[in-house]
């Protein structure tokens, strides 16, 4: 009888087993994998750090394999160098496609950025998928942090590429339809707004500024709202950040914004660690003369130099310098890894090719100038005293203390260019303020470049189009 029972159990067990496909896809029991890893808060936390790691990207000078993701470290190519601010030192090669507005769909830097940010989105989706393992108290904050970073990635993608595939969760390799179907940018923006609203509601302040916070989420959401013309909602968020109780302020010395990390001006930065192979960056080296892989990129255009000379105030000397090794060429002074004794800038990284300078994403003067923009509300100018107070605060720090009585859109754009030069804002600002056509066509004509309106969107990388088997369409003009 006992034997029969055992037999029955065996039969049952067999029939159960046959319902699953563990025979073909056996559960991995000995190793850690994505399916079984996430079981505790600290493991979810590791998954969150992994998202930041994706944005941080790989230092191409320290880990030199091809086809790695370099994240925010290559963003300046797609933004500053595609504006009137910067160019390559030697005006040649793939990197020079940006400054001349002749970007090919095969451009590897564009593909790197696209790939990197979808990888960031994947890492965020992975955490969001495994949240059931989190403790109830921490679950909402974890979700908020992942959504903040996912929204930040989508906000950059939608501004650079226009309509993009919207991957809202984990997808299987066979789900090519989701991976390669471009979704209208208004729907992508809806998704971004929803993620950031969640982030604002469930994040808190007080952590390190290279971590997501309520203030960072409010600031990025405000910029999304400004991009969408939702000015009043933007203003509410910005005034929330500006409330004195939140503790944000302008640094007295402009230099300290970049060389006194962890200051009260920076709301959100991507953190780097000097002399670390895994967590350092090489963009600081690339901006120098033949210290990085390039002979020098993100060099200051003559247009930007002339502009800063007249509009920069005391920021000018801390924004660019003449290349000591090549007269007549000008380097960015923000994010120097090896210091500049003449400017009083300390050496922050003993080896400039593994620099530790954090990349500043959002800082308080950007918040103040967004506040002006929200009050201007798409108009040609404003005389509102609240707008003037914010504007004047930024100018006073720069030593431009003449009293402002009204602000035109052009003056706002100029102040943003002077204050936030070489911080990857210029291109987005021109587009958002409706000045891109005027400014870039004039800049292109004056310098014999190839700008046309279709250059306002980057090409979808050709490699993605090839993989999509006809699903992914190219932007016009490429």
């Amino acid at each position, binding site marked *: 009888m006992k034997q029969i029972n055992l037999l029955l159990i065996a039969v049952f067990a067999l029939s159960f087993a046959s319902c699953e496909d563990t025979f073909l896809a056996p559960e991995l029991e000995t190793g850690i994998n994505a399916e079984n890893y996430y079981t505790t808060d600290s493991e979810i936390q590791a998954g969150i750090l992994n998202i930041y790691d994706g944005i941080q990207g790989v230092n191409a000078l320290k880990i030199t394999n091809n086809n790695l993701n370099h994240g925010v470290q290559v963003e300046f190519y797609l933004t500053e160098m595609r504006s009137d601010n910067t160019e390559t030192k030697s005006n040649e090669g793939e990197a020079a496609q940006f400054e001349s507005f002749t970007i090919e769909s095969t451009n590897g830097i564009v593909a790197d950025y696209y790939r990197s940010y979808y990888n960031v989105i994947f890492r965020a989706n992975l955490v969001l998928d495994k949240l059931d393992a989190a403790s109830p108290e921490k679950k909402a904050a974890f979700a908020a942090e992942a959504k903040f970073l996912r929204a930040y990635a989508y906000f950059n993608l939608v501004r650079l590429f226009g309509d993009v595939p919207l991957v809202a969760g984990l997808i299987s390799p066979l789900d090519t339809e989701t991976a390669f179907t471009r979704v209208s940018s208004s729907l992508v923006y809806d998704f971004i707004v929803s993620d950031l609203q969640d982030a604002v509601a469930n994040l808190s302040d007080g952590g390190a500024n290279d971590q997501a916070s309520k203030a960072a989420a409010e600031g990025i959401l405000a910029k999304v709202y400004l991009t969408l013309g939702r000015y009043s909602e933007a203003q*509410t968020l910005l005034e929330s950040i500006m409330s004195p109780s939140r503790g944000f302020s302008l640094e007295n010395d402009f230099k300290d914004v970049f060389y006194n990390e962890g200051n009260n001006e920076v709301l959100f930065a991507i953190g780097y660690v000097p002399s670390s192979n895994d967590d350092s960056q090489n963009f600081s080296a690339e901006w120098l003369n033949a210290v990085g892989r390039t002979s020098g990129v993100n060099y200051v255009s003559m247009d930007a130099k002339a502009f800063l000379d007249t509009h920069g105030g005391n920021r000018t000397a801390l924004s660019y310098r003449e290349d000591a090794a090549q007269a007549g060429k000008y380097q960015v002074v923000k994010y120097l890894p090896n210091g500049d004794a003449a400017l009083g800038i300390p050496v922050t990284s003993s080896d400039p090719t593994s620099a530790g300078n954090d990349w500043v994403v959002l800082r308080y003067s950007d918040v103040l100038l967004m506040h002006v923009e929200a009050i201007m509300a798409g108009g040609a100018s*404003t005389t509102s005293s*609240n707008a003037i107070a914010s504007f004047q605060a930024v100018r006073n720090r720069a030593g431009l203390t003449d009293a402002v009585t009204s602000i035109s859109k052009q003056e706002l754009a100029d102040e943003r260019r002077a204050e936030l030069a070489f911080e990857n804002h210029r291109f987005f600002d021109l587009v958002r303020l409706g000045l891109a*056509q005027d400014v870039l066509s004039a800049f292109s004509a004056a310098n014999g470049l190839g700008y046309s309106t279709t250059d306002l969107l980057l090409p979808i990388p050709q490699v993605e189009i090839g993989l999509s088997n006809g699903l992914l369409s190219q932007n016009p003009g490429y």
Partner: protein
Amino acid sequence: MKQITNTIKSNIFNLKMLSLVALAGFMFSCEDNVLPEANSIEDLTPPSAMFSATESNGDWQTYDFSNQSVSSTTYAWTFGDGNTSTAKEPSNTYAAEGIYTVTLTSSDANGLTSTFSSDVEVVEPLVPVILLPEILEASFEDGMLDGGSGDGRDSWRNSDLGGVIQITSSPTNSGSQAAKFPSAGDRIAYQELEVSPNQDYVLEYWYTMKTSGTGHMTVSVLAGDSFTDTSAAVAATIATFEGTDQTSSNDYVKVELPFNSGNNTKVSIYMFNAGVESRVDDVSLRLP
């Protein structure tokens, strides 16, 4: 030996091919090239016209056209107002408001064409109107509301924040009535105003206080409307003036209280006192 045979065969084959090619050459030369040339492939990317129009910065009459055509080399634009262009990305300035149908015909070097049309609506932007709301019963006189109604304080009530003000007939700053706030400090005046957001205004009023006792006569402007409790009202204060001038109980003192309406379409005036019997008269709102 076998190799030699192969070579010979191969040569014969080549010869045949050569004659075939020669024949083919003769045949084609008799015709007018209506057939595609050998090895030519079909044009799978015919031109496709597409554009978008954006209002030029700072000029509502001028539109910039962004050419998004594919596989095209020449372009012909008609802007709907009689103007035309063959530039790739032209601009056009319209003489007047209206809806214009813009047509782009794009062509490739094979002579294939594609046409796309879209309407452009040229509208002169509205000049933003700055609201300057009227303050009701601003001098606390009787009969100031519609149809000659009103007791001078009907527009100033908010029972959640405090009792309604009293009316005094002497002293007044003008007319025959003013608002009176007894020394108990339990009465308030409150009125909501519709304003333009982020606009600078100046609230003007006159006040006087009795000479004995200590206290204040405070007038505040609050962000928003529908206040139902005092602490929320105080927290929403945009601008406030705490009057303490007790020089004379008969002579009114003028106060100018500048404020910016901020991110609000409504603000509220909130007046309250403490300690000393006080009077307020002739409230007005102006632009700076």
